[in-house]
């Protein structure tokens, strides 16, 4: 929807940066958020903008929103516009991996240069408070008994929520193509369906539902993170005996054909930003988890995620 540059925020932060230490790098960056205002990638881009400028790791940062098609519109524009440029970054994540496959997008993440993985949020599997299911084992037994009437609510088709629902169904020993997954826009409407008791279970980013989980309106059965997380009572699926892990990760990329020198400079700026106390404070406030990985590790990670997401999307009939 809205493509605009966050200007006033930038102007305001520029004033802060004026007071930043003299060692400040002279990077003048433009970060593409391949989504509209308010979404996860948009807030990731804007958070990066805020902290990079506040810590003096960049002189100025502009955020450009290019929404569309699970981020693939922004990716295509970025691949064409940022070729060889040392001052362009793109935010992306696991949803983009799925969208590239389901939309048959002309460009994929091998066309861009991974700089760093930034955050990784757990997904939560939850049921309405009135549900008879008390534990993950109850839900899995329910799936085995009647997969058709086990109705899931979550975000858009082929996204991370959908993939997790399919993985849980698969782990229950049922054909994942049979999962009855009802897609809603964003995290909002699926929450209403959960609270209204119209569905059996739901998947969402933990942060989006934590208010309802704390107030007892929803019962969290499991999280998809590999290890337990402090402050979250629900245990990982892995710890409950299901071999599933899925992290809603986000990272930054530079354009194609970036010189080694420019790449190293961007890596350093991002690494320094992520190590700063300001970043730690900010991701805490947003309810995100640090999932930093440097360029080389991130590149391998993307390859394995692409394989994994591709095969599960195939099994639920969204890709061929």
């Amino acid at each position, binding site marked *: 929807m*809205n493509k*605009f540059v966050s200007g006033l925020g930038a102007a305001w932060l520029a004033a802060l940066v004026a007071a930043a230490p003299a060692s400040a790098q002279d990077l003048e960056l433009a970060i593409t958020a391949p989504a509209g205002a308010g979404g996860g990638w948009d807030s990731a881009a804007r958070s990066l903008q805020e902290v990079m400028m506040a810590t003096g790791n960049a002189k100025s940062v502009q955020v450009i929103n290019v929404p569309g*098609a699970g981020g*693939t519109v922004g990716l*295509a524009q970025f691949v064409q516009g940022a070729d060889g440029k040392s001052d362009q970054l793109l935010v992306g994540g696991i949803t983009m991996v799925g969208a590239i496959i389901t939309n048959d997008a002309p460009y994929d993440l091998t066309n861009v240069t991974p700089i760093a993985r930034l955050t990784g949020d757990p997904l939560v599997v939850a049921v309405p408070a009135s549900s008879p299911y008390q534990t993950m084992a109850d839900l899995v037994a329910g799936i085995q008994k009647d997969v058709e009437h086990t109705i899931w609510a979550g975000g*858009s088709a082929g996204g991370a929520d959908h993939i997790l629902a399919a993985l849980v169904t698969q782990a229950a020993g049922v054909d994942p193509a049979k999962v009855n997954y009802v897609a809603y826009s964003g995290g909002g409407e699926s929450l209403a369906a959960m609270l209204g008791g*119209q*569905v059996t279970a739901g998947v969402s980013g933990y942060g989006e539902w934590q208010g309802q989980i704390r107030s007892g309106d929803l019962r969290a059965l499991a999280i998809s993170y590999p290890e337990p997380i402090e402050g979250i009572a629900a245990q990982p699926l892995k710890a409950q005996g299901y071999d599933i892990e899925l992290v809603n990760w986000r990272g930054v990329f530079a354009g194609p054909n970036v010189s080694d020198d420019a790449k190293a400079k961007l890596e350093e700026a991002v690494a320094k930003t992520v190590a700063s106390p300001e970043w730690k404070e900010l991701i805490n*406030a947003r309810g995100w988890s640090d999932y930093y990985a440097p360029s080389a590790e991130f590149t391998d990670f993307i390859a394995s995620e692409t394989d994994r997401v591709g095969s599960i999307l195939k099994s639920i009939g969204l890709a061929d």
Partner: protein
Amino acid sequence: MDSILYLLGGFATALEPMNLTFAAIGVMLGTAVGVLPGIGPALTVALLLPITFKLDPGGSLIMFAGIYYGGMYGGSTTAILLNTPGESASVVTALEGNQMAKRGRGGPALATAAIGSFVAALIATAGLAFFAPILVKLAVKFGPWDYFGLMLIAFITVSATFGSSPLRGLTSLGIGLWLGLVGIDQLTGQTRLAFGVPNLMDGIEVTTLAVGLFALGEALFVVSRHAFSDDAPMAIKGSIWMSREDWSRSWRPWLRGTAVGFPIGALPAGGAEIPTFLSYTMERKLAKRPEEFGHGAIEGVAGPEAANNASAAGTLVPLLTLGLPTSATAAVMLAGFQQYNLQPGPLLFVQHPALVWGLVASLFIANVMLLVLNLPMVGLWVKLLKIPLPWLYGGILVFASMGTIAANPSVVELLMLVGFGFLGFVMRRYDYPVAPAVVGLILGPMADSQLRRALQMSLGDPMILLQHPGSATMIGIAVLALIAPFLFKGLSRFRQDED
């Protein structure tokens, strides 16, 4: 009782001179940016939000409330004066409002919109303050089947905007429905009618269609007729203020519009458009002189504008009580709240009562400020119409295309805008109404996904639509509304035959 104390405390903060100034600035900025065609409330709030970060939490919350209501109100001005709705919720306002302006009654039209917005927002904000926790319990019970019933009613009511020929009205609606198919289907990820163009993947932007059909189409049509008419149609006749008759014709529509707008706005997938359609139809049915509709009936401005603003307050119900942003504007607002460490959700009212009631007080103050600042502006706005036609339409086209490329800077979007402009011209030339196309684009995709969600939950059994009392009732109403006119017509013809 505690809530009243908190509310009073909120008012005490909001009424400080400094904070009143912030409210005034917020309202002015919100209105000024919201007035631009193509820049809806979501973009307005997003653009202006960073300004508020500089202030202390109290002041910024107040300015924020001003921007929100200012942006919601701004769209009606261009809809009335220039037949250029800035956002989808103002499309209905343009129908009667612009007819009024063309008959020299732009002043009363703007005034009834401003006062109606004020009344609606006042009542709806009070509703938000006192009934939000109850209302939200009902709202989440609204299932996909119920939404589908509501959509059906909305579809039937569209026929009120059809004009003289049902074939032309239905054709316009059909074009809107067709455009609504374009893009990636949310439920299955299947792409429809995008022909591999990435910019089409997310579907057709409603504002692009509305601005194209209304603003560009109107300009092309007016220029095609300009040489043959010696009229200066937009002069001001009579008082620019509302007459006694205008008042007596407006106050009921304001209240009815509020009654429709607030609860539908509070539904998680309700939106601001459907209440405006429903309100328009209702006023048309209830009007003492229904023949005036289509020629500048003030009820047709008063009702939908009230409904629009009441739904804006309604949107805050799921946002504050569930943390659930139900519109693009609300999503931007949510980001704004988080800046003040205000995490909307079920515990918000319990954990941060002072902030919540401070916000409610701010909304009241912003609303009053909106009226105080905008009523005197009516005289100024109406003078816009005195600009000579060549410059007026030159300006309209520049602002309309600017709004579209600013919101979405791509050549494809601009080409679509121009294409819709020519479509609007052809439709006007051959007497096809343009509003049903916009309505089709809004309602079509909503009805499609809600129906399919309902059928997915019932494993394909259509009876689910009749098993739930809410949806069964609404579908019943829709069917009645559809066949009643034919029945009555048949009946009266039958009687005539007997004579």
